[in-house]
Structures are given as C-alpha cells and as structure tokens.
C-alpha cells in the first residue's frame, strides 16, 4: 500500500514542477493556428466526413454549461436526436407573447424566401444564464414560400426525400393546408458570428430588438413541413429533416420526454412541451422517429400545438406514415 501512496505524492510533487516549455507551447500554438486557418477551406469536405452538431429548434441550443436533468436519445451512430430536459429556461407566457410579436415583426419585413436571426432583451431573459457563460443563442424567423397544391407538394417531396413516408390523410381524416421548405417551428442556427453580433447590439448598444438577414448557400439540414388540419380543425405539422452526413441534433427543452416503440419496432420520442415559445397555446406535443436510409438519414416529426391532439392521435398518424412507406418500399 505504501508504494501506491508514495506514487500519488510523487506524482503530485513532480506535476507541480511541470509546465509546457516555451518552445513546445509556441510549436503547438502554431500548429493550432494553421489548423484553424485551414479549416474553412476544408469545411465542405469535413462536413461530409464527420459528425456534425446542430442546434435543434424550439428553444433549442447546445446543452453544455447547464445542469442536465435527464437526457433522451433516439437514433444510431449516423444520425441521432438528443433532447436534454433542463430547468434553466425562464419561460413565462407574457415574455413568450412579446417574443412571438418580435418574431412576427421581423417576419413581416422579410420577402418570401428570406430568413433572419433575431435577438432581444426578452429573448435573453428566457435564458438568463446563457450570455454570462459566453454562449450563443438567437431566434430564427423566416418567410418561406408556401406550396398550396398537395399533389405538386407530394411529388416534390418524393423527389427530395428517399423512401418518403407521408401520413395516410384519408385514414386520419387530415386535410392538406400547405407545404414549406423548413422545419415546423424555428430552425437550426449555425451562424455563431451573426449571433455574437446581435447579442452585442442588444446587450452593449442597448437595442430593444436586433435582427439580421442570413443567407445560406445550402441548407445543412434540409427540412420540409407538410401542414394539415384534422377533422376537428386542429393543425398538425408533419416534418421531415434530411441529413446525408453523420449528425447529432441536440436540443434543450423543458418538455416531458418519453421514449416509445412504434409497431415496426423502431424507437420514437414523444415530447409534450407546455412552455413552447412558438405557438400562442404555449404548448406543443410531438412524436419523432428516425429512418436511416442508404443515402441519407431522415428525421420525421409529427406535432401539434393544439391540446385537442392526443398522443394516441400522433402515434396513429406516425403508424399510418410507416405503413404507407412499407407499401411503397420493396421487400428486403
């Protein structure tokens, strides 16, 4: 035993005398600088090769720096969705109303097809500890083109999404409302530098609302949302999000999360959020599952902000989509 205790002390004593020598430090810094400077030129290659992190929608952000309460994950090593439940979001309905108005103000100034990132004191107040940790967070607003012809929209989706699954509208008594090329609510935020600027405008220059249009040469995570109304007139959004890369979506939420298994055995994530920023009802229930195809992984989400839409209804819509897909898909 004495040897082991002596070793611990010996290591502590030896470590106290060790620091990176100047030459090695300089060499390491030079190597790091070269790598960081070379990175943008190689980004498209890296993007295809490595796992990406993305910020999922709905008050979503990368989760480090906050107390994790629990963690729900579905997917595999190629595509995964991880939701972390967290109590650091200071949601209140009045602030949420203001933020929704702010997003609408920005949205109304965008031409069709344009998108922007938005920051304000109220957005900051939703996550009071966020900026103090030097982190980035902003809201996303857009004015997407809306497809109104269901046939045309389905054809378009079938071209864009491998082995597309859509709900059986007849069986679920769903009526098509429109289709758009983005997620149901919010959007993924990748523009860290823009967010930094917006944060500075609000917190340092005292602006009430700061926003900036963003342009993306290509969407890193193309998403398509089909909106329906059910027999009761309640809205229901069916989204598909594609990734040809290895990717990990990480979201922060106060929602109740539950992992369930669909009839074909695959895992799905049921989420019930009663502090939802993007709907006037402050509520959003959704069911997500992942379909890993050869050329891409597809994240499916069906959700509704109406409290009349039940978990069972979402599961039924999901099951109908899966059975439609099974009919089209050739047997393995």
């Amino acid at each position, binding site marked *: 035993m004495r040897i082991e205790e*002596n*070793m611990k002390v010996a290591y502590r*004593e030896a470590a106290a005398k060790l620091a990176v020598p100047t030459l090695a430090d300089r*060499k390491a810094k030079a190597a790091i600088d070269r790598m960081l400077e070379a990175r943008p030129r190689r980004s498209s290659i890296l993007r295809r090769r490595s796992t990406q992190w993305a910020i999922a929608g709905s008050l979503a952000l990368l989760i480090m720096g906050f107390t994790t309460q629990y963690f729900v994950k579905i997917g595999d090593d190629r595509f995964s969705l991880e939701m972390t439940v967290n109590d650091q979001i200071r949601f209140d309905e009045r602030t949420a109303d203001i933020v929704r108005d702010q997003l609408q103000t920005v949205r109304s100034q965008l031409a069709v097809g344009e998108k922007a990132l938005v920051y304000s004191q109220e957005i900051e107040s939703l996550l009071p500890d966020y900026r103090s940790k030097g982190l980035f967070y902003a809201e996303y607003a857009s004015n997407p083109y809306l497809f109104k012809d269901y046939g045309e929209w389905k054809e378009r989706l079938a071209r864009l999404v491998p082995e597309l699954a859509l709900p059986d509208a007849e069986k679920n008594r769903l009526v098509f409302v429109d289709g758009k090329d983005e997620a149901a609510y919010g959007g993924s935020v990748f523009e860290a530098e823009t967010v930094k600027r917006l944060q500075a405008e609000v917190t340092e220059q005292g602006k009430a609302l700061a926003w900036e249009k963003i342009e993306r040469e290509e969407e890193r995570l193309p998403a398509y949302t089909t909106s329906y109304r059910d027999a009761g007139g309640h809205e229901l959004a069916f989204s598909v999000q594609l990734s040809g890369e290895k990717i990990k979506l990480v979201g922060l939420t106060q929602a109740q999360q539950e992992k369930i298994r669909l009839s074909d055995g695959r895992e799905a994530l049921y989420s019930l959020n009663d502090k939802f920023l993007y709907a006037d009802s402050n509520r959003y229930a959704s069911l997500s599952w992942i379909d890993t195809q050869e050329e891409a992984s597809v994240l499916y989400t069906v959700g509704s902000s109406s409290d009349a839409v039940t978990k069972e209804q979402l599961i039924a819509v999901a099951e109908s989509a899966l059975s439609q897909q099974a009919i089209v898909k050739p047997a393995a």
Partner: protein
Amino acid sequence: MQDHDYQPWLERMIQGDSDAFRRIYELTKDDVYRLLVFLLNDREDAGDVLSEVYLNLHRSLPSYRPEQPFRKWLNGIAVRQASSWKRKLWRRMRLFERVSVTTIEGPQGRLPAEERAIAREERRELLTLVDRLPYKLKEVVVLRHYREYSLEEIAETLGIPVGTVKSRHHSAIGKLRQWIGQDTFLEEAAFHAD
C-alpha cells in the same frame, strides 16, 4: 481546474469559435503536458505530442458527447496519442530503454529536514522505477496514481476490460515491489561490503 470551468468555452469551441479553441488550449495545456511527460518519460517527446493531442481534439470534437466529462475525454485523447507515439517510436527503432540506477540509503542518523528531502528523493526514484515498467503497465499506473482514476474509468479510457486493468495494475505494483526490494537488498549488501 474542474469541468465546469471549461464549459462556456467548450460550447463555443464546439460551435466553431476559434478563439474558444485557443482558450481551451490555454486552460488545459499544462495538465495535458504533465500527463504526456509521465506517460512518455521524455519532455521533448511530450512537447511534440502536445500539438498532436490538440489537432486530434479538434478532429474528434464532433464525436464528443455532452454528458462526458470533458477533462476525462481529453485525457483519453492524450493517452491514445501517447500510445500511438510510442508505437511510432518503436517502429523507427528509436526506443531506448532508460534504466536508471536507483539507490536507497540506510535510515541511520538523519535530521528531520534531511529525512524529508530523502523521502522526496525516494518518491522521485519511485517514478523512475515506474518508467522501467512496460508501457501497458505504466499507463495504468499513471492513470491510477497520477490521475487517480478508478479501475472502471481506466478501462473506459483505454478501451480494455476492467479485469485486464486489474491484472495490469497488480502486475505493475508487483514489479515495483520486487525492484524496490532488490535495490534495498543490494544497498544493504553494499553497506556490509564497506
């Protein structure tokens, strides 16, 4: 430093902020360097491997899981990088076994200050003996007694079963005991010869 000290920088680094990456380097470099010195027993080699650890860290960022303690994850990269460096050295036939001569003095007639100095010297020599261990045993010893990892944590870091960690640790301690015993015996023999 604790993991929560890194977190704000860590998140920014993952989001692609170059300044945050440089900050993480500044915050962790000495810690990583010490581990490399203890593993490689060569400060120059440790300095060379240091930059490779951070280049590897950058490449590995996409696989970092937020529930993983960052320091342990970084240590894992350093251990693997050190191990790879060792293998490269071996291939290049540049690996020279450094066998140090150890002496342990008798206990007679020492002043407290002198005793403390001797104890320090003995501990330093103990680390010299650790450097004589085969690398696979040594990395277990360094993680166990320098990093103070549990056997399970070592198994996770090295990607080997806990049973293997236990047997390597047992074997390492056995060898150290044996070497210390031999040295003491030789020392006593030398006293008698005088």
